[in-house]
């Protein structure tokens, strides 16, 4: 080869060559912050639904929770001597903040958001070493912490704007005193019951020959004809601001499933277990608990099943384990809802199953390629 052509051809500069171990290419879509961004996007429909139903106070709670969560994460990193902006770039604090807000009533005061953010980010996550090391879902740690510390505030629910507008129709959910307040235009003080709380307490006028539950459920379904279930589905009921709209959560959940960011088996196992369990209980004893569809659509089941039980850090790593996890969550939820002291059990069930994850991981291992063949003696 002549010198002339050698000079014309540009060759790689060995000085600039990186030497590292294989693999040399990496999927461009797989980044922690990208995963978190998708989770945030998939939470947006529920956030919009929350603001739609509960008005600007809901937006305020969401923003406060996100801002406080991010600030506490930064402050924690500063105290630990880590880079202040190091971990907030992964957006996990924003996700936690949103989930925390979704678990609060739209009527909570600002300091509940602050304490909640501290419980979630500080005690739920950072104290264990940050993202990846926390055994429990941070937002649920905060919800349960707040529920124990401030039971009154955490179980006081505000009615949706539509419920206030048509207050007489929803008279089962709104107390007589609050009806007076609504008529007087004092909307700040108005509270209402969640459908689950309503079913649990069944504080309805006693009718002859009927149990309180039967009477209550009849009333519930009788609101605007059959709109009771429709209201449950779209979220026009009292409850935490992000958990009431099964429809919005379903849209976000389907987005996450289609992006393969969560395993579809988890929500299916969770919701399916609740449906089957409550269906059986309702068939055996209709006076014990409402029907399955009511249970599936009410409370925090969709939020829990699509966004909390699927939390990567605090759920099992194998698909087999994730299904066991989902079924476990469903069973505990039903036990609490049907026979427990609380009307709602999704938060507790996920936290209890979180604690069992190391055990599930241990028993739900995959059998590596070729091990069954070894046992079966397929070797020649």
């Amino acid at each position: 080869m002549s010198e002339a052509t050698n000079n014309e051809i540009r060759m790689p500069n060995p000085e600039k060559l990186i030497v590292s171990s294989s693999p040399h290419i990496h999927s461009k879509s797989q980044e922690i912050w990208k995963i978190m961004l998708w989770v945030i996007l998939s939470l947006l429909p529920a956030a919009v639904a929350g603001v739609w139903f509960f008005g600007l106070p809901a937006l305020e709670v969401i923003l406060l929770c996100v801002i406080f969560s991010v600030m506490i994460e930064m402050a924690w990193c500063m105290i630990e001597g880590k880079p202040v902006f190091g971990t907030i770039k992964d957006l996990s604090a924003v996700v936690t903040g949103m989930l925390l807000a979704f678990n609060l009533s739209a009527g909570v005061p600002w300091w509940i958001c602050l304490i909640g953010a501290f419980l979630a980010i500080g005690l739920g996550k950072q104290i264990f070493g940050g993202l990846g090391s926390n055994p429990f879902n941070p937002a649920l740690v905060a919800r349960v912490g707040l529920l124990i510390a401030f039971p009154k505030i955490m179980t006081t629910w505000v009615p949706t704007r539509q419920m206030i507008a048509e207050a007489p129709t929803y008279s089962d959910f709104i107390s007589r005193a609050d009806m007076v307040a609504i008529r007087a235009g004092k909307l700040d003080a108005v509270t209402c019951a969640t459908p689950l709380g309503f079913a649990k307490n069944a504080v309805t006028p006693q009718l002859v020959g009927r149990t309180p539950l039967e009477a209550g459920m009849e009333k519930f379904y009788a609101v605007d004809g059959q709109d009771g279930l429709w209201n449950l589905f779209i979220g026009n009921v009292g409850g935490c601001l992000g958990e009431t709209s099964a429809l919005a959560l379903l849209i976000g959940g389907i987005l996450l499933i289609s992006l393969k960011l969560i395993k579809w088996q988890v929500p299916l196992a969770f919701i399916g277990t609740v449906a089957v369990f409550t269906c059986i209980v309702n068939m055996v004893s209709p006076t014990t608990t409402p029907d399955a569809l009511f249970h599936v659509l009410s409370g925090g089941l969709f939020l829990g099943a699509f966004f909390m039980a699927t939390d990567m850090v605090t759920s099992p790593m194998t698909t087999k384990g994730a299904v066991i996890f989902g079924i476990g969550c469903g069973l505990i939820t039903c036990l609490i809802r049907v026979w427990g002291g609380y009307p709602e059990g999704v938060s507790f069930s996920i936290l209890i199953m979180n604690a069992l994850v190391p055990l599930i991981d241990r028993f739900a291992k995959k059998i590596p390629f070729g091990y069954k063949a070894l046992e079966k003696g397929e070797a020649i």
Partner: protein
Amino acid sequence: MEEVQKKKFTGGIHPKDNKELSSGSAIQNAPLFEKYHVILCQHIGAPPKLVVKTGDTVKKGQMIAEPGGFVSAPVHSPTSGTIGKIFDVPGPSGVNQEAVEIIADGQDEWGSGLDPIPDWQNTAPEVLKERIAKAGIVGMGGAAFPTHVKLSPPPAKKIDTLILNGAECEPYLTADHRLMLERPEAILEGASIMARVLGIKNVYIGIESNKPDAIAGLNAKSEPYKVNVVTLKVRYPQGGEKQLIYAVTGRKVPQGMLPMDAGCVVQNVGTAAAIYDAVTQGRPLVERVTTVTGEPVVNPGNWLVRIGTPIADVIRLAGGVSRTPGKVILGGPMMGFAQKSLEVPVMKNTSGILLLDQVDTVQFTSQPCIRCGKCIDNCPMDLLCGTISCFIENEKFDKAEELHVMDCLECGACAYDCPAHRPLVQHVRRAKAEIRARKAKQNPK
């Protein structure tokens, strides 16, 4: 006869294959260069012994190093000329290796001392096997295990199937693809020779469905050779030995065992063509098809290059680079070796020289595992990669071993998708080395 794969392995990934860069360009013969640096030990096994000295004249195909044992292979001169220095050159693994410099005389005159065996159908299998050994043929797909050893299973193992690996599942590489397109008869006849050596009838060739022209071409010619062409799903690592056997035969190689324990022998298509040359032409393995590709390469393509050609010369054949690459890799992007020196010579198992752009070679910082389980879903061996990696990070090698880290084939499907950019494959390599070292300490031989 065309067949569809019997089974699909679980996991795997489907990265953009970028094969269109070079798959359309026919194999070109590299010109004769002035000097070659032939590394002596190009295979797994005992290093060969040098049989020439500085100043000797050699013919093309003449043996310059003889096997150092049974699991070993000879090395031959890639051209006629004089033996120059015997010195250390940078090897593909980053470690310097002993090499022989051959100064070409320009005649390129054959003199291998191996006679063609045109009538191999009536030649004793032992003779054919000896020829394969003498021709220095090793696995050309990557592992470089001496082929005659693979063709000598212990009598207790009942081999009934030979599988040619034409999956070429690594992105970018097209050398096997072009070889299947351009030399289908050589591959099929090479396969028939191996079938005769093994004394078996079932011969398959597994090809990923993204090479329909190669599948059609081999199919059209396969009838007289009684080779079954199996179309495989495009899924990395489909060309992994155990995954290929599973796809083609539905058999799983039992853990810790070899393909022969599932009654199979797997050979690369390039190896089959080399066996054809060795037996019917009397030509030892002195050249191979290699892909020079990657976005920075001016004219990506496939070249028939002599073993011992410094990769700088091969990159120059492809017109050099249009911009500074970030990495030069021997092999594919998933399992290849990144190089620091362009003096590294082409080896018997160099299936490709891949240049990656600087933007594609960003170095990531490892973050804590977020337990997303992507690695576990991707693992073709169904291992708990993420958990294993966390154990290794904390130097708990015994725990990693309990989770079967030794079964990892280091395909990199886990690390490819890890959102935390964890160096999973490096962790596994470290654990394997530590565990082997501990075992060696416990049972010194």
